[in-house]
């Protein structure tokens, strides 16, 4: 487990930054289907904020927000969400990932596609956050049981 940083500046700056980072990341995720950004970038930013909190605040306090053990299951769940949304379209008569067939109470196929993508983006974001944090934790742990 990572020890908290000794530097006051690092601690204060990162503690201030992390919430803003995460809010902005959420904006990037939800804005993604009609502007630059999206699940991947947003997820990466969420992961970056979590990793920053691990590095600056130390493992113990970072675990409060995001447990190490959640990493890989979340990665799987996010990807599963992505794949499942695609499959739902199949069950409602469309091709795989054809969001126009999603069972949402909307009439316009274009809108349907738009909101369908939102689900996908959320899935991607969750998957990316989980996976990246898991990779980070894994790499860090890899050190510690060796030293």
């Amino acid at each position, binding site marked *: 487990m990572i020890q908290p940083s000794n530097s006051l500046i690092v601690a204060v700056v990162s503690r201030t930054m992390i919430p803003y980072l995460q809010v902005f990341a959420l904006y990037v995720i939800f804005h993604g289907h009609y502007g630059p950004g999206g699940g991947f970038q947003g997820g990466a930013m969420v992961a970056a904020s979590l990793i920053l909190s691990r590095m600056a605040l130390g493992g113990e306090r970072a675990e409060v927000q995001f447990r190490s053990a959640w990493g890989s299951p979340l990665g799987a769940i996010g990807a*599963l969400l992505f794949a499942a949304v695609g499959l739902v379209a199949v069950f409602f008569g469309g091709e795989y990932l054809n969001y126009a067939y999603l069972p949402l109470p909307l009439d316009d196929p274009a809108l349907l596609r738009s909101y369908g993508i939102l689900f996908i983006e959320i899935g991607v974001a969750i998957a990316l956050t989980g996976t990246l944090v898991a990779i980070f934790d894994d790499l860090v742990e890899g050190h510690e049981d060796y030293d």
Partner: protein
Amino acid sequence: MIEQHLPLLVPITYLFSALVIPLVGLAGRRYAYPVALIASLLATFAAARGLSVALREGAMRYAFGGWAPPIGIEFVLDPLSSCMSVLLTGLTSLVLIHARRPVESEVSGKEIPFYSVTMLLMTGLTGIVLTGDLFNLFVFLEISSLAGYAIIAVGEKPAPVAAFRYLILGTIGATMYLIGLAFLYMLTGSLNMADLASIIPQLPLTPPLVVSFAMMVVGVGLKMALFPMHGWLPDAYTYAPSTSSALLAPLGTKVAAYVLLRVMFFVFQPSFGRDMLPVGDVLTYLAAGGILFGSILAIAQKELKRMLAFSSVSQIAYIALGIGFGSQLALTGAVLHIVNHAFMKAALFLVVGNMRLVVGHSRIDQFDDSLRRLMPWSMAAFTIAALSMVGIPPLAGFFSKWYLVLASIERSAWGIVAIILLTSLLSAVYFFRVLERVYLRPLQAIGGSGFESLARKEVTMSMLVPTLTLSGALFILGVFNTTIVTKVIHAMLPPAL
């Protein structure tokens, strides 16, 4: 309703199981294996259905998300891809039936990620085979490669180093392919294989087109360990866990060979690599070198898995040889050899897995006739597969060589004929060296226990049945090769040869 989604079913089954395994793994480590096995069996079933449909009704297309092909991504289930997917899924099922005990003993504690990544590997491999889009193919290629690095790395002590070197070379290969793709996209504005096949013949032979073709061939050649770009293969296959090598050796490089076939004959027109550029000839020379090199080095190896790895280098070169010639006979031989060699190598690597479980090593110089006493059935399977590799009829290995020899004679390439036949003899040398030790070298008695006191310690049925099935299948593949060739392989060859 299912019929319509057939092209999708195989990769998606693997993908879902890859994602579900970590989740059910939370409930207990023991649930990972059944999920993987069931998924693989389902995928096999879907692939078999797909093959029958594709042979009956011709190519079947599936556009993702409802976007029409030149823009959207499509999956194509034509005879070639469906046959490959049957091969991939079928062999995976057999290897997975075999896998439970070896995985428990060799990668204990990491079963959940191992099975999950294996499923991801299969997602990638089946995706490569089924996709009709060159960029999508790149993505699947990388998915399968990444999964491959991971399941190699959990092996013996040097495994991570081998995997790392594989990663570096594999990434270079993939990047080469991507660069080639960039040029092709610049010239044509399309990435869809069928679309490209109609555009490329109208293009003038400009340097970018040549560069793109060459880059793609080189990149794929790296992935398929085509001599002299095979450097990563021996270490990777040697140090990987048995199950990983049993999956990667028969399937990984074969899929790369499939990509080569696709790119050279279905995306570019067959005459492109033959008449306009000497790529076919170069491929033939490289293959001839690889056939010899692999066999000669295989003779020098002291470790059975390493020997098999070098033999793979040589066998892959056979496939490249067929692709390089590019005639109907040669391609028949190449495709048949993809199938045959997959079965042979899978059988051989499974036997190595059995050996490692029972006697704990696979060093050739320590083999003695206690092996035939301890594990007679595994050794019988090994013998059959080895004879098939040597090319004894009616085993499968003979017939793919037969077509390749016919193709070389057709081209009056006598040197190649000589090399193919010489390599048969070389492979006889390295396989009989092993067989002789296993069957004839007296037990190096420890404590004077002697041969007769050895109790049979054959592996369990779950490991034995796949091993024997694979080696038994070599008879069937051999005897019924004409049926396979005329019914399946002829249907899958490019129409404009």
